[in-house]
């Protein structure tokens, strides 16, 4: 069974700090990581492959430094890793990104399952997975929190809803987007890291190599554009209520009552 896992190398936005003096994010020195939910996706794929016998191809669209993230997938047990990298992909929104990924997946071929993390912690859109499935004309299920069963014809999953879950049966080939609840990603083994760097290669594919239509990738292929970015306006410091705790609490209650918040 061949499983493809799409990963994204992202800045670790959960660790980002704010510089109050300049009002901007301190981005320097922010480590890059594999997007957390993509790690869950990879873990599931590697786990399935070792159980049923199969191979896992890790795929990422990104700049040259995404090589490091792909090495990590190899260290965690992916069979091979492919970096889709080309200047022409720059500025892509989710439509153009998923199109490029689809061309790469077509080139990989003969897959039964594609795993994607539900969403990336920098873009937060959760759109690439479903849009990729659309380009490939395969069914998809999002918010997968558990795999109930899998054979060579179909997969049955638990799909999270806000107030519970639904059990969905889906024919293969299919694309699944994974939640953190799905599993606990393994640590790469020391031997895995040695293999990833000393014994394996990360293949690099360009836009031309996957036969991507130039009009559908990068900035040109993106229906959406960013008009501007700004830091959300900081509320600004309010009042610290002083005095004994009793006094402070009295003041607070008066203020809240006046605002009719009680």
């Amino acid at each position: 069974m061949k499983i493809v896992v799409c990963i994204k190398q992202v800045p670790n936005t959960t660790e980002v700090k704010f510089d109050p003096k300049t009002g901007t994010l301190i981005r320097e020195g922010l480590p890059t990581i594999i997007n957390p939910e993509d790690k869950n996706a990879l873990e599931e794929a590697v786990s399935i492959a070792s159980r049923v016998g199969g191979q896992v191809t890790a795929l990422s669209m990104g700049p040259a430094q995404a090589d490091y993230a792909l090495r990590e997938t190899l260290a965690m047990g992916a069979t091979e890793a492919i970096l889709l990298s080309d200047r022409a992909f720059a500025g892509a929104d989710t439509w153009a990104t998923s199109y490029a990924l689809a061309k790469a997946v077509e080139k990989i071929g003969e897959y039964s399952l594609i795993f994607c993390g539900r969403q990336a912690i920098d873009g937060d859109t959760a759109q690439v997975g479903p849009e990729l499935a659309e380009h490939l004309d395969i069914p998809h299920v999002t918010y997968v929190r558990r795999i109930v069963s899998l054979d060579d014809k179909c997969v049955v999953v638990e799909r999270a809803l806000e107030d519970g879950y639904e059990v969905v049966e889906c024919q293969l080939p299919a694309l699944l987007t994974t939640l953190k609840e799905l599993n606990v990603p393994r640590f790469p083994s020391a031997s895995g890291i040695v293999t990833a760097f000393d014994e394996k290669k990360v293949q690099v594919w360009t836009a031309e190599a996957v036969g991507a239509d130039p009009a559908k990738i990068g900035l040109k292929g993106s229906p959406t554009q960013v008009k501007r970015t700004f830091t959300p306006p900081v509320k600004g410091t309010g009042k610290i209520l002083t005095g004994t705790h009793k006094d402070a609490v009295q003041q607070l209650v008066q203020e809240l009552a006046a605002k009719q918040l009680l």
Partner: protein
Amino acid sequence: MDFALSKKHEMFRTLFQDFAMQEVAPLAAEIDESGEFPWLTVKKMAALGFLGLPFPREVGGAGADNLAYTMAVEEVSRACAATGVILSAHVSLGAHPIYQFGTPEQKTRFLVPQAKGEKLGAFALTEPNAGTDAAGQQTTALLDGGEYILNGSKIFITNGEVADIYIVFAMTDRSKGLKGISAFVVEKGTPGFTFGPQENKLGIRASSTTELIFEDCRIPATNLLGKEGDGFKIAMQTLDGGRIGIAAQALGIAQAALDESLRYAKERQQFAKPIGTFQAIQWMIADMGTEIEAARLLVYRAAWLKDMRKPFSKEAAMAKLYASETAMKHTVKAIQIHGGYGYMKDYKVERLMRDAKITEIYEGTSEVQRMVISASLLK
């Protein structure tokens, strides 16, 4: 001269840090208090290949190098010095002598299970009357037919009783002095080989330290490591490498002291300001940071020299000397920065200080290191 870590080693460091934070740190305070040996953590480290990091795949190791192994000990020790020394004693002292001096058959029997993490290793040189004066070995090994009979005792053995495989040094020919010492591999469970109780220590309390007792303990002659008389050389060369491990442990402890001090200096307020704004504290932190950085460079360089198969004995001694003294000095300073809170067991720093002290003593006291360094410089 490229001071940057390779991408591979960056990934190693991330692995060790993540592992230490998730698996080692949460237990550190508890096992220090109870003295309980962290078996589960050891098994997890074994599963990830930590226990065989610098050994080739052919002998069951991870195929990494001494630099990676050094970083592993550093990061694990940063979270828990006791867990760090369990790893270091096993790799450098229990497994490495067999890697360096063992026959292929001995490697299969004793090294492979250690590298795979299936069995733990230990090193038994120290005796009640032979510490720094290692040549004063009183444990004897008498050849009798196809066996050696061991008699004597060893003390303060790290991984004592928990280890399965022991490198034991004993006198085979007293008339030859230093050249009459030989090295043997002894397995737990061998009749005549027993253990004393667990020592109740000031620090690294979760590491198991016991006496080893040999009473007419018979081992196959094929358990002799190297030739008769090679023992002292084997011991010294093994300790050269072990020094790098202990230096890494001390480095990890010192780094933890700095981590805690930085955090506290930013949080603790006196006179309506974080104490990190006061020069007295700032200068303590400056010194801490500088000396830890210097220690790190010494430790990594010693590991690098060993990986390059260049002579590293002097550099390893320098690293161990400097890192251990740095750890001791700055864990004391870290408590000072924490003031009264630093003296309480609720805070980490008092444990760091208790853990740091042993690094100035075992695997060659600071005095021994100075002997080694000066001997090398004055040649």
